[in-house]
C-alpha cells in the first residue's frame, strides 16, 4: 500500500481540466473541434473519448483530420467510470512522447447513466485532478445541459477547476472547485442486500469462496468471459481482505437490473484515493488487483468507512 504523503488534490499546474457546458450540437462542435484542431496544429497527440453519438459528430466535423485522432466510444471504453483513468486517459497519455502536451476530450457523464453509476462518475471526475496534477495534459469534459440533472451540472463545477459556460468559448475559474469534497460526498454506504447469497471467508477458504461466488453467478445466468472475469475479481477482492483487510471478510452475490453484482466487505482501510486507477510500472511486483477489477467490471463502487471497506462490482448479464 502506497501512502499518500502530499495532498492528492494539491496544485494542478501544468494540468488543465475544464468542464464545458453545451446546449446543442453546434455548441458542442464549436468548442471540441477547434480544441482538437489546435492540438493537431501544435503537433500534440489528441484523443476524443465521448459517447458514440457525439463521437460520430466530431468525426464527421473533423473530416480527414479524424484519422490523426484517437477516437473512442466512452460508452464502451468508459462504461465503468473507474476504468477511465487507467484504461482510457492514462493509457493514451502515457503512450505519448514525454514533455509534449496531450489533449483529450473526455465525456464520462451522459443522461443514461444509472443511479448506481453516477456516484462513481462524480468521483472519477474529481479523481482526474489527483491523477493528472503536474502533468502536461489537457482534458476537456463536455456536459450536456439539455438532459443532465441540475445536481450533476453543479457537481461538474466542483470537480473542474475551470469551466466554459454555455455559449462561451473561453474558460473561467470555477468558484465551486472542491474535488476532495465530491469524493467524500459520493463515498456512499453500500448496505448489505438482504436477498444476496452471503459467505464468510478467511485465508483457508479463499478458493472455496471464489467457487461459491462463481457458482451463484452461474445460477443467476452469468456465462463465458463475464463469469471468468467475476472469478478474477472475487479472487482479488477476497485476497485483499485476507492480506490487507484484517484477514477475513464477507462476500455477497446477487442479481440486480440485468447485472450480477458481487461485493466483498472487510475491516480494512483504503487510504490511497487512486487505488486501482494508476497504471502500474512493468517492473513493480504486486499492487494490480484493484486495477484489474476496474478494467474488467462493468461498474465498481467502493465505500470507505471508519470500520471497514466495501467493494462492489457489477457484471452485465
Amino acid at each position, binding site marked *: 500500500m502506497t501512502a499518500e504523503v502530499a495532498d492528492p488534490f494539491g496544485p494542478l499546474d501544468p494540468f488543465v481540466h475544464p468542464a464545458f457546458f453545451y446546449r446543442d450540437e453546434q455548441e458542442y462542435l464549436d468548442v471540441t473541434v477547434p480544441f482538437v484542431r489546435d492540438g493537431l496544429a501544435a503537433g500534440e497527440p489528441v484523443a476524443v473519448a465521448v459517447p458514440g453519438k457525439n463521437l460520430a459528430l466530431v468525426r464527421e466535423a473533423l473530416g480527414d483530420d479524424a484519422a490523426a485522432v484517437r477516437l473512442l466510444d466512452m460508452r464502451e471504453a468508459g462504461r465503468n467510470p473507474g476504468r477511465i483513468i487507467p484504461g482510457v486517459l492514462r493509457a493514451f497519455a502515457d503512450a505519448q512522447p514525454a514533455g509534449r502536451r496531450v489533449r483529450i476530450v473526455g465525456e464520462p457523464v451522459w443522461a443514461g447513466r444509472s443511479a448506481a453509476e453516477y456516484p462513481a462518475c462524480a468521483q472519477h471526475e474529481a479523481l482526474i485532478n489527483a491523477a493528472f496534477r503536474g502533468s502536461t495534459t489537457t482534458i476537456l469534459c463536455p456536459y450536456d445541459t439539455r438532459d443532465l440533472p441540475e445536481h450533476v451540472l453543479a457537481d461538474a463545477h466542483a470537480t473542474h477547476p475551470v469551466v466554459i459556460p454555455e455559449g462561451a468559448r473561453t474558460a473561467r475559474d470555477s468558484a465551486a472547485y472542491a474535488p476532495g469534497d465530491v469524493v467524500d460526498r459520493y463515498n456512499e454506504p453500500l448496505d*448489505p442486500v*438482504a*436477498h444476496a447469497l*452471503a*459467505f*464468510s*471467508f*478467511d*485465508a*483457508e*477458504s*479463499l*478458493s*472455496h*469462496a*471464489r467457487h461459491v461466488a462463481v457458482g451463484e453467478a452461474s445460477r443467476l445466468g452469468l456465462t463465458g*468471459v463475464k463469469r*471468468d*472475469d467475476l*472469478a*478474477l475479481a472475487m*479472487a*482479488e477482492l477476497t*485476497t485483499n481482505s*485476507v*492480506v490487507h483487510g484484517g484477514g477475513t471478510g*464477507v462476500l455477497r452475490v446477487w442479481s440486480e437490473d440485468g447485472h450480477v453484482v458481487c461485493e466483498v466487505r472487510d475491516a480494512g482501510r483504503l487510504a490511497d484515493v487512486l487505488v486501482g486507477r494508476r497504471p*502500474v510500472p*512493468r*517492473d513493480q*511486483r*504486486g499492487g*494490480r*488487483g484493484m*486495477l*484489474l477489477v476496474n*478494467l*474488467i467490471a462493468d461498474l465498481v463502487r467502493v465505500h470507505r468507512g471508519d470500520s471497514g471497506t466495501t467493494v462492489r462490482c457489477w457484471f452485465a448479464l
Partner: protein
Amino acid sequence: MSNPFQVPSAEARGPRPGLAVYPLPGRRGVRAAGEVGLTTRAIWEGVLEQAVREGEGVYHLELSDVTFVDVAGAGALAAAAGRLRDGRRFVVRRPPAALRRTLDLLWPDQEGIEVSAS
C-alpha cells in the same frame, strides 16, 4: 434462509486446493495441477525461480490441469519472463482463461511468454 442477514460460515468447505508440480518427461519444464492463489503462490514462484536460474532455451509450463491463476500469479510469471535473456522463453500450454485474460490486460506484449492452446 429465514434470516436474510445470516452469513453461513464455511464449515462445509472442501479440502483446500493445492498446487502439485511434476517434471515433464523428455522436456525442460513442469506440469502443474491445482490452483495458483495466495496459499499456493510460494510453490508457483519456486517453480518460476528455478526455471529462470537453470538451463537455456524453452521452459514448458503445462497448465491444462491448473484451474485458476490469480493476478499475483500472472505477475510472477511476467516478472520471471522479464528476467529471461538471450531469447529464452516460457511456453505456457493450455492455461486457464484467467491467466490468459490477466496477461492480455496487464502485461500485453510481455516478452518471454508464448501461450499455446494445443
